[in-house]
C-alpha cells in the first residue's frame, strides 16, 4: 500500500489521473446508487456522516491517544444546537451559515468543558469518565423539558428546517442539465464537501507541529512534557477539535433528518463510532474512513438477511438489529485479537502495538 503510494508519487501525472478518477467516481456516485432508489443515496449520506464522526473521534483517540467513550455527546450538542436555532420549537429560523459555526463553537466549548477536568486522567479512567459525561448529557437532554421546556424531552424536536443556501433549498428536487437533483443528492454533495474539508484539516494537522505533539503525548506523556510540549493545551486542543467536528456532523444530521430525539445519542452510538476507528486503524486517516464506510453500510446489507432467512428457514432466526450490534461487538474483539492495529494500520501504531508492554 505504502510502496504503491511512493511509486505513484514518482509519477505525478499518474497521481493526478488517479485523483481525477476518484473525483469523477465520487461526483457520479449519488446518480449511480440513485438508480436503485433514493434510499441508497440516504445510506451513502449516512456513511458520510459517520466518516465525519469517525474522523473527529480519530483526532482524540487515534492522534492524541485519549480514549473517549462519550463522543456522541458532541454529536448531540451539535444536533440540538441546529434543531433549537432552526425549528418552530423556539420559533427561530436562523440561516445555515450562522448555525454551522454556532454548532461548531458550542460543541468546541463542550469539548473543553469535558477535557478540562479530566486532563490528569489516563487510559481507562479517562474512558469511564467520558462515558459518564456522555450519559450525563443524554440524561439532561432527555429531562430538560421542565420546568422550562428547552429540549422538549423524550419527544424530541420535529419540523427542523432543511438547509437553505441563498435561494437553493435542500428539501425539494431541482432539475439541472437533465439530471434530477433530489434532496438526498443535494445533501450528498454538501456532506462530501464537508468531509473533504475535514479530511484536508486532518491530513494537515497530522503532519503539523500539533499533530506531532499529539503523537508524542500518545507515545509517552512524561517524555513529551520533558520535550517542552504543553500537555494541557495540546490535550484540550485535541478534545476541542474532535468535539467540533462531531458538532458539525450533528448539525447536518439534524437538518437531513428533520427530527431528532435523545434516543439517537445513546452510549452505543459512541461505541459504534469507536469501533469504526478501531476497525479501520487508529490514527490512520484512510483506515478510519474505510472503517466508517464499512460499518455504516454493513447494517444495510443485513437488512437483506431478514427476507433471506424467511425464504430459507421459514422464519426470522436472527433479528437484524441485534445481529448488527452483535457483529460490531465481535468485530471489536476479533480485530483486537488478530489485527490489533486495524485493517489499515498507521505505521506508528503498528510498531507500538507490536512491541510488548514493559512489565
Amino acid at each position: 500500500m505504502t510502496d504503491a503510494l511512493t511509486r505513484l508519487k514518482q509519477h505525478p501525472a499518474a497521481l493526478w489521473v488517479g485523483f481525477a478518477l476518484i473525483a469523477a467516481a465520487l461526483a457520479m456516485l449519488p446518480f449511480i446508487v440513485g438508480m436503485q432508489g433514493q434510499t441508497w443515496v440516504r445510506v451513502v449520506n449516512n456513511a458520510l456522516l459517520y466518516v465525519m464522526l469517525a474522523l473527529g473521534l480519530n483526532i482524540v483517540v487515534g492522534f492524541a491517544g485519549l480514549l473517549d467513550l462519550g463522543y456522541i455527546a458532541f454529536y448531540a450538542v451539535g444536533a440540538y444546537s441546529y434543531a433549537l436555532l432552526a425549528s418552530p420549537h423556539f420559533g427561530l429560523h436562523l440561516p445555515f451559515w450562522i448555525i454551522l459555526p454556532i454548532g461548531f463553537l458550542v460543541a468546541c466549548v463542550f469539548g473543553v468543558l469535558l477535557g478540562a477536568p479530566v486532563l490528569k486522567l489516563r487510559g481507562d479512567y479517562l474512558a469511564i469518565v467520558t462515558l459518564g459525561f456522555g450519559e450525563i448529557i443524554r440524561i439532561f437532554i432527555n429531562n430538560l423539558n421542565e420546568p422550562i421546556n428547552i429540549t422538549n424531552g423524550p419527544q424530541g424536536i420535529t419540523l427542523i428546517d432543511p438547509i437553505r443556501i441563498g435561494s437553493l433549498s435542500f428539501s425539494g428536487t431541482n432539475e439541472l442539465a437533465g439530471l434530477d437533483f433530489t434532496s438526498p443528492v443535494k445533501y450528498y454533495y454538501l456532506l462530501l464537501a464537508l468531509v473533504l474539508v475535514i479530511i484536508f484539516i486532518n491530513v494537515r494537522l497530522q503532519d503539523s507541529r500539533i499533530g506531532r505533539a499529539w503523537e508524542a503525548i500518545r507515545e509517552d506523556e512524561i517524555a513529551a512534557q520533558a520535550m517542552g510540549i504543553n500537555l494541557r493545551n495540546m490535550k484540550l486542543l485535541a478534545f476541542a477539535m474532535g468535539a467540533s467536528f462531531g458538532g458539525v456532523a450533528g448539525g447536518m444530521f439534524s437538518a437531513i433528518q428533520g427530527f431528532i430525539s435523545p434516543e439517537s445519542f445513546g452510549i452505543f452510538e459512541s461505541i459504534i463510532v469507536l469501533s469504526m476507528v478501531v476497525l479501520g486503524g487508529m490514527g490512520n486517516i484512510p483506515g478510519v474512513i474505510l472503517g466508517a464506510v464499512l460499518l455504516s453500510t454493513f447494517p444495510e446489507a443485513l437488512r437483506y438477511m431478514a427476507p433471506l432467512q424467511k425464504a430459507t428457514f421459514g422464519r426470522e432466526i436472527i433479528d437484524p438489529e441485534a445481529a448488527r450490534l452483535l457483529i460490531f461487538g465481535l468485530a471489536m474483539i476479533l480485530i483486537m485479537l488478530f489485527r490489533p492495529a486495524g485493517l489499515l494500520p498507521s505505521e506508528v501504531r503498528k510498531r507500538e502495538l507490536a512491541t510488548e508492554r514493559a512489565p
Partner: protein
Amino acid sequence: MDIFLQQIVNGVTLGSIYALVALGYTMVYGIIGLINFAHGEVVMIGALTAFSVITGLLGADTGLPVGLVVAIGLVAAIAVCSVLAFSIEKVAYRPLRRASRLAPLITAIGMSIVLQNVAMMIWGRNYLRFPELFGTERYVVGGASITSLQIAIVLLAAGVMALLLVMVHKTRLGTAMRATAQNPEVAGLMGININTAISVAFVVGAALAAVAGLMVMTYYEVAYYHMGFILGLKAFTAAVLGGIGNLAGAMLGGLLLGVIEALGAGYIGDLTFGVLGSHYQDVFAFFVLITVLIFRPSGLLGERVGDRA
C-alpha cells in the same frame, strides 16, 4: 426526618448490591489492571438465568418449596456466570495480557456488546416481570419502613462478603491472588500459578455478580437484557470511590454510593427549588465518579495512585 431515614434504608439496600458487583471490578482491576466492562453483563446473565430457572421450576408444579427453588436458581446462576467469566477471560483478555492497555479495554467493550445482544436473542427485548415470591413483611422503625426483602438482601450480601474476605485472607488461594496482585512476575517466581490466580479472581467475581443479579431482580421485580450496563457503571464508580483494587474499599464505596444516590434522589427537588427532579438519579453516580477521579483518584481507602490513575 422519616424521609431521611427511609432513603438511608433504601440506599443501604441498593448499596450492598453495588458493593457485591464492585468487588468483581476491584478484584480484576487489582490483579490485572483492567476495567472489565463485561462485568455488568455478567450480572445481567446471572439475573436472567435465575429468572428462567426459577419461573421454569415454579411453572412446572414440582411441589418444591419456594426457598429451595430460589436456591436452585441461585446455584444455577452462579454456575453459568462462573463458566462465562472464566471463558471471557480465557478468550478475550488472556491473549492480550501483554498488549497495550487500550487493547483489552476495547475487547472488554466488545464483549459487553456481544453478551447484551446474545441475551436479547435468548430472552427477548421485553422487560420480564419477576413474580413476588415471598410475602414481604413491613417493619416500621423510627418512621421508616423496612421490608423483610431488604433485610434479607443486606444480610445475604454481608454474609457473602465475609466469606470472600475469609477466602482472600485466610486460604492459600487467597494468598496467591494477593501475591499476584502485588507483583505477577515475582509471584510467578515463587511458584504461584498466575493464570489460576487470575481465573479465580474472575470466577469469584462472577459468582458475586450472580448473587447481585438475583438480588436486583427480586428487589425491582424485573429483569431485562440491558439491565447490567448502568448497574455495572455504578458499581465501577463505587469501586473507584472506595479505592480501586481494595476489597474493603469496594464494600464501603458501594454502600456510600447507594446512600448518596438515594439521598440525592430524595432531596434534589428541594435542593434545586424544584428545577431538577428525581429522574436525575442516575446523574449522581457520574458526578461522584468525576469528582472522586479529579480530587482523590486513589479513592477513599486506596493507597497507591501511581502511574495508573
